[in-house]
């Protein structure tokens, strides 16, 4: 069907217009954003916390575990089967 790509492109353009128009019509309390210093340091503090009870250290650990499992799963799926 030749008209299908045109229809898909048109629907995506309509979606983009809808999203952009709704963003532009919304009233944001503040126009500009401030600039922050030491972002990497602050990000490190946010991730691992300043005391034992704060931060996302455990989640970082589990995300690393998830990546390892995904890597092993990928290797298992991609390895060639022996006849």
């Amino acid at each position, binding site marked *: 069907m030749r008209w299908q790509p045109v229809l*898909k492109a048109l629907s995506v*353009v309509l*979606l983009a217009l809808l*999203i952009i128009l709704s963003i532009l019509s919304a009233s944001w309390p503040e126009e500009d954003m*401030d600039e922050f210093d030491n972002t990497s340091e602050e990000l490190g503090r*946010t991730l691992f916390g300043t005391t034992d009870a704060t931060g996302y250290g455990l989640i970082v650990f589990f*995300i690393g575990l998830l990546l390892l499992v995904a890597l092993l799963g*990928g290797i298992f*799926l991609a390895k060639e089967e022996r006849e």
Partner: protein
Amino acid sequence: MIPLVYWLVFSSLLFCIGAYGVLTKRNAIVVLMCIEIMLNAANINLVAFSSYHSSLHPALGADLSGQAFTLFSIAIAAAEVAVGLAIILSVYRRYKTIDVDQINILRW
């Protein structure tokens, strides 16, 4: 700095480019790349809104939770790509194609 609206428009354009690719492309790897583009659009939104929140409440100091969540999101995307590419490789070995229109065995 660049206003929030610019980031939002940029990320929505990025999302729509990804959606167009997912809808029209037939190569499974290109579809996977387009899904990654859509994920990146969501990541840009997370960072932009986190930075905007910090600008709105300067008394609270810099809150980089959105940036931290974005790092998690990127890690999840990496895991997804690892499994997705392995599945594509496996499908190619079986069907000798990665055309998503021809791999229709899951279609009901």
